[in-house]
C-alpha cells in the first residue's frame, strides 16, 4: 500500500518529508510530490502520479479512429484543439489524405488561439503562484474572449473535439473573423499592462531570475520541449522544424522565441513573447481563409493500413507525439501519446533540487504542468 519509496531511515538528521499534493494549490491539479526538506530547502523530489490517470491509451485500443479524438481533449485540456489536430493529422498521414486548404488554415488559427488561451491561463496562475492574485482575473477576462470564439464555432469552450480525420466538425461561424479581429488588438493592448503589472515588477524579477536553471544539455537530456526547452536555448518548435497544417502549406512569417538563460524568467519570457507571435500568425491567416470545403472524403469507418505512424505537433506545452500502431483493423493496435508535460516533469525532479519551497512552486509554474496531460 505504501507508495513512499523513501523511508525515514534514509533521512539525514535535519531532514523531513513534506507531502505536497495531490491536493495543493500550487500543483495545479492532482500532482503529488514527496519532498525531502532541510528547513525550507528542497533536497529531493519524488513525483507520484496517477491521481487522474484514465488510461486513455488503453481506451484508444478499443475505439475506432474517429472516436479517439474526443479522448485527446481530456489529456491536455488547455490545448485541446491542438491535441485533436495531432490525432487527425496522424490519421490523415496514414491514409494519405490531402485535406482542403481551408481546413488547414482553420486548424492553424484555432491552434494558435488555443495556444494563446493556454498561455493566458498559465500567466494568470503564474501570478497566483508567486502571490500576485489579481493577474488571475485579468488573464481570465482575456481568455474568456477566446473561449467565446471557440464556443461560437466549435460549440464547446474547452473540450472542442473540433478536428476530425480529414477535416473539421463545423464550418466557421460567420462572426468568427470579426471576433478574432476584435481580440487581436485587445490582447496587443493588454499585454503591455501585463508586463507592467507582473513582468517588470522588481519582486517578480528577483523571484524569477536565476532560479531553476536548466542548461541546454539538460533540457535535451530531460526530453524537455516547448517553451521549457526554448527557455534553455533549444530550438525545438515543431511549427518550424517540421511544419504541419498551414505552417506547411502557407508561407507564415513568425519567429521561434528562444532564450538562453534557462531560468524561470527565460521560460516566462518565452511564453509572453509567444503570445504575440501567435497573434502574428493569426493575423497573417485570418483575412484569407480559402473556401474549398471543410471535409476531405473519408470512409465512414476508417481503417488505417498496417504500419506505424508518428505525428508530432507543437502544443502550448511542447512537443506532443501521437504514435499509432495499426494492424489494419478498425481499432488501433496501440496508441501512445507522448505528452510534453511528462518529460517536463522529469526536468522538475532535477532542477527543483536545492531551491526553497517558494521557488519550487515558481519553477513548477514556469514548467506549466497540466496534470491530466502527465497522467493521461
Amino acid at each position, binding site marked *: 500500500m505504501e507508495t513512499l519509496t523513501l523511508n525515514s531511515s534514509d533521512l539525514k538528521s535535519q531532514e523531513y518529508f513534506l507531502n505536497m499534493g495531490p491536493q495543493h494549490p500550487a500543483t495545479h491539479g492532482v500532482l503529488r510530490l514527496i519532498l525531502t526538506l532541510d528547513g525550507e530547502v528542497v533536497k529531493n523530489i519524488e513525483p507520484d502520479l496517477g491521481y487522474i490517470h484514465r488510461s486513455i491509451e488503453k481506451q484508444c485500443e478499443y475505439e475506432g479512429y474517429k472516436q479517439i479524438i474526443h479522448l485527446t481533449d481530456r489529456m491536455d485540456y488547455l490545448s485541446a484543439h491542438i491535441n485533436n489536430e495531432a490525432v487527425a493529422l496522424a490519421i490523415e498521414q496514414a491514409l494519405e489524405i490531402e485535406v482542403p486548404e481551408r481546413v488547414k488554415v482553420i486548424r492553424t488559427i484555432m491552434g494558435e488561439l488555443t495556444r494563446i488561451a493556454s498561455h493566458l491561463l498559465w500567466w494568470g496562475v503564474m501570478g497566483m503562484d508567486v502571490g500576485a492574485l489579481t493577474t488571475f482575473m485579468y488573464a481570465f477576462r482575456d481568455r474568456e474572449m477566446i473561449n*467565446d470564439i471557440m464556443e461560437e464555432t466549435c460549440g464547446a469552450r474547452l473540450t472542442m473535439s473540433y478536428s476530425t480525420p480529414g477535416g473539421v466538425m463545423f464550418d466557421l461561424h460567420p462572426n468568427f473573423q470579426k471576433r478574432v479581429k476584435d481580440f487581436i488588438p485587445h490582447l496587443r493592448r493588454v499585454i503591455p499592462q501585463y508586463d507592467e503589472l507582473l513582468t517588470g515588477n522588481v519582486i517578480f524579477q528577483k523571484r524569477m531570475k536565476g532560479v531553476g536553471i536548466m542548461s541546454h544539455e539538460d533540457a535535451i537530456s530531460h526530453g524537455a520541449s516547448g517553451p521549457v526547452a526554448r527557455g534553455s536555448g533549444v530550438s525545438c518548435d515543431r511549427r518550424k522544424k517540421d511544419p504541419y497544417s498551414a505552417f506547411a502549406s502557407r508561407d507564415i512569417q513568425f519567429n521561434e522565441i528562444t532564450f538562453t538563460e534557462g531560468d524561470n524568467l527565460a521560460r516566462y519570457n518565452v511564453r509572453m513573447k509567444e503570445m504575440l507571435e501567435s497573434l502574428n500568425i493569426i493575423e497573417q491567416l485570418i483575412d484569407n481563409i480559402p473556401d474549398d470545403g471543410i471535409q476531405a472524403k473519408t470512409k465512414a469507418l476508417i481503417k488505417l493500413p498496417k504500419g506505424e505512424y508518428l505525428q508530432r505537433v507543437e502544443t502550448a506545452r511542447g512537443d506532443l507525439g501521437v504514435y499509432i500502431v495499426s494492424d489494419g483493423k478498425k481499432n488501433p493496435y496501440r496508441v501512445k501519446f507522448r505528452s510534453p508535460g511528462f518529460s517536463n516533469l522529469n526536468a522538475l525532479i532535477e532542477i527543483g533540487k536545492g531551491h526553497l519551497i517558494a521557488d519550487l512552486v515558481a519553477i513548477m509554474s514556469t514548467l506549466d504542468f497540466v496534470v491530466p496531460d502527465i497522467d493521461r
Partner: protein
Amino acid sequence: MSYLGDVIGGIKTLMKGMKVTGSYFFPNVINKKYIITRQYPDEPAIVMERFKGEVVMWHNENNEHRCTGCQACEIACPNGSIEIIWNRVLNEETGKKVKQIDKHIYHLGMCTMCNLCIQACPTNAIMWSTNFHNSTYDRSKLTKVLNKPGSKLMAGVEE
C-alpha cells in the same frame, strides 16, 4: 550608488504595477466600468447557438420525429451513451416489416459532447440543444429517453 538606484528603481516598478491595478479599480468604483461578472441567475447566460448542451430529438407539432432506428449514432458513439431499443413493425401500406424505434435512450452522464452521433445521423433526427441546466441530485435522471411517448416516424424520412 547602485544601492540607492536599486531602491528607487524597485519602487518605480512597484508604482507601475499599482498604476495598472489602480486604473481598473477607480473606474470600477465609480461606475463599475470594467467589471466582467455576469450575475448569472439574474442576468441570462450568454449561450452561443452552436453550444453543445445535450442531444435532443426533434419533434414536429404532430409528435413525429425523424429517427428511423438505423443505429448509426449508437455505433458512432465512443462511450456508449446512446442505446436504441427497436422492433420491427408491420407497415400497413407496403406490407413489409419496418424497423421502428421503441426508445432512443441517451445517457447524458456519459456523453462527452463529441458531436459524432449527430454527424453520423443520416436523417438529421437528433441535434444539439443549448440547454445546460443539466444538474440533478440523482444520476439516474441523466438517462433520458429522447423520443417523446407516442411519437411516430415522420412520413417520407425513410427514403
